[in-house]
């Protein structure tokens, strides 16, 4: 297809959904594992770990650039997991034992809230700055000059709250954080402050991951209330002259039952996982979308490479039904669930699919 590669303009843009493998089979791709293990043994210090993280972030960005993506992430290389990485940085949150993350064979550490979770330091803003700087130091293809963006990713307030616990005070006092709604709103306040800072330092798009809401749709009202705070943060930034787009991504479950509600959420982009329900394509093609979509048509959980022609035909059906004709082709979820060689193959596949799209 021929269209602009500027990811804010109409057309089909290539994006990373979030994470990217931090390890590969070669020794040079195992520096982070070795640095972490050495740190645990007391043989190295946190500066060594930071060096290893930085190097793996640079490599993750380089892979995305090489594959031809326009919307690039830092691969969430520094994240212990999607929940505790953010929650651990908030005051009044402690991190407890391991729990399975959705239907994956990946485990996260569960936050325990003992008071209002408060943001006292940037959650991902410094990482965003580092990634943008790293991208700037890589040679950019001429046709993409000035059209690449680093997309910071935040796990959303509802998903953070759903997987957090309230500490039992044991003194008989009423514990506000035993309420899912209270936890969600408290996290939303912390994330809203992060959105403002990200906007101030130049993030043009911020991805909010809320996989839990499509698994637990009964909590929609709580979710909606929390998202309102994030939208207010975006609009506050807009009033100050730097309006980022908010991209709400859902995955790890079938989004079809909530599709009509999702597209009415006043964010700028909705990202959908198409791997759980083959009929979702029919639904979106039939109902259309009033806003840009992230099309998770390439499975981020399985190594098998999709048929290029088949996915291209699916996009040909969907793209004309998306208002404004803007969409993002990305994997169904972050790529950390795949071995590194297969993750890169999936990135390359995105570009091959786009080349085969006719619409």
């Amino acid at each position, binding site marked *: 297809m021929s269209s602009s590669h500027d990811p804010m303009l109409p057309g089909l843009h290539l994006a990373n959904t979030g994470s990217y493998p931090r*390890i590969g089979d070669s020794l040079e791709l195992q520096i982070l594992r070795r640095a972490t293990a050495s740190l645990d043994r007391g043989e190295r210090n946190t500066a060594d770990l930071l060096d290893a993280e930085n190097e793996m972030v640079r490599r993750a960005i380089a892979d995305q650039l090489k594959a031809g993506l326009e919307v690039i992430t830092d691969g969430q290389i520094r994240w212990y997991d999607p929940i505790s990485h953010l929650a651990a940085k908030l005051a009044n949150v402690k991190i407890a034992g391991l729990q399975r993350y959705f239907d994956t064979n990946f*485990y996260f550490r569960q936050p325990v809230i003992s008071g209002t979770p408060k943001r006292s330091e940037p959650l991902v803003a410094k990482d965003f700055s580092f990634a943008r700087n790293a991208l700037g130091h890589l040679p950019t293809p001429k046709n993409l000059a000035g059209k690449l963006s680093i997309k910071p990713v935040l796990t959303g307030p509802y998903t953070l709250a759903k997987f957090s616990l309230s500490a039992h005070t044991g003194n008989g006092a009423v514990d506000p954080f035993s309420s899912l709604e209270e936890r969600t709103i408290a996290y939303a306040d912390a994330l809203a402050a992060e959105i403002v800072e990200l906007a101030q330092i130049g993030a043009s798009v911020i991805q909010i991951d809320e996989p839990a809401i499509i698994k637990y749709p009964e909590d929609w009202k709580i979710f909606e209330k929390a998202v309102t705070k994030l939208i207010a943060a975006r609009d506050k930034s807009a009033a100050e002259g730097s309006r980022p787009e908010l991209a709400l991504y859902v995955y790890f479950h079938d989004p079809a039952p909530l599709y009509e509600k999702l597209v009415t959420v006043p964010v700028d982009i909705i990202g959908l996982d198409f791997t759980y329900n083959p009929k979702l394509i029919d639904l979106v093609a039939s109902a259309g979308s009033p806003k840009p979509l992230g099309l998770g048509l390439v499975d981020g959980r399985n190594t*098998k490479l999709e048929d290029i022609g088949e996915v291209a035909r699916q996009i040909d059906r969907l793209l004309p039904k998306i208002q404004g004709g803007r969409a993002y082709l990305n994997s169904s979820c972050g790529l950390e669930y795949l*071995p590194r060689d*297969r993750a890169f193959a999936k990135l390359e596949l995105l570009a091959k699919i786009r080349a085969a799209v006719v619409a």
Partner: protein
Amino acid sequence: MSREKLEHLGLQLPLFPTTSVGSFPKPDYLARARADFAKGKIAADQLRDLERKATTFWIETQEKLGVDVLVDGEMYRGDMVAYFAERLPGFTEGGLVRAYGNRYYHKPIITGDVSWPGPVTVDSWQFAQGLTKKPVKGMLTGAYTIMDWSFNEHYPDRRSTAMALAAVIRKEVEALIAAGCKIIQIDEPALSVRPEELPIALEAMEHTTKDLNAYFITHACYGEFEHIYPGMLDLAVDNFDLEMSNSDLDLLEIFRRHPFTKDISFGVVDVHSHKMEGREAVRRRVESALTILPKEKVWIDPDCGLKTRTVDEAIEKLRLCVEVAKSFRV
């Protein structure tokens, strides 16, 4: 019913039989030997000798502690799915993926028809059983979990993958039974992760154990069992081995609403903590169990495999299980 089955198999077990979930920590010499073997520094025979030395240690340890139904401790295994995938035709070793924190594993890829290459675990089981007169469990991973924890590039869907694997695991079950194994544990830790797929897990286990003469146990953990209960009781096994203490016995409330109809291996000590629970705390867990479950159906064991604990911690946690079980027999 299951007591009758055990007796029919010639197994006389006391009330509150004690067992363990499967894995024990590998002694330092074996951990070093496995690393050396991976680097090509020692031969397979040398590694096998050390695995057998460690297996002997654990069988003797369980005997001394008074455990009733023994395990070989899985000294020869790394990951519970990769171990089988490395030995079954149809699998290709995948690259490293992260499990949590700084832990990575080679996630297998199904790239062709899976098939049974001949006995995979029988030799290890026979060695362990040869060291003791007490029953040693055969230890397998279930078809649904192997499917869920592997990439699939070959079969058209998850059900057909699970059923192909079930046919393979059934042959291994038959081989264990032919060798004399009477209690076989088929682990399904992925059982609850996709509640909508419970019918697939049930069908696969039915195909694995149907009409075979052994007492079957399954272990499941880290699950949201409230989403698959009571449907999970249709799994074609005699005994569910469940981590109860890690979840603060939450499952008992679910059992209160709908009776638990199988035998249960009731996890009474937390395997994720270095901390040693007090004997009275563990006794209270069993007392709570007995408010709902008939004593004839309750086995006692740790929550999960003990491989992440130190050798000394694992022994003490097992000792606690045995002491508490014995205190309820009087």
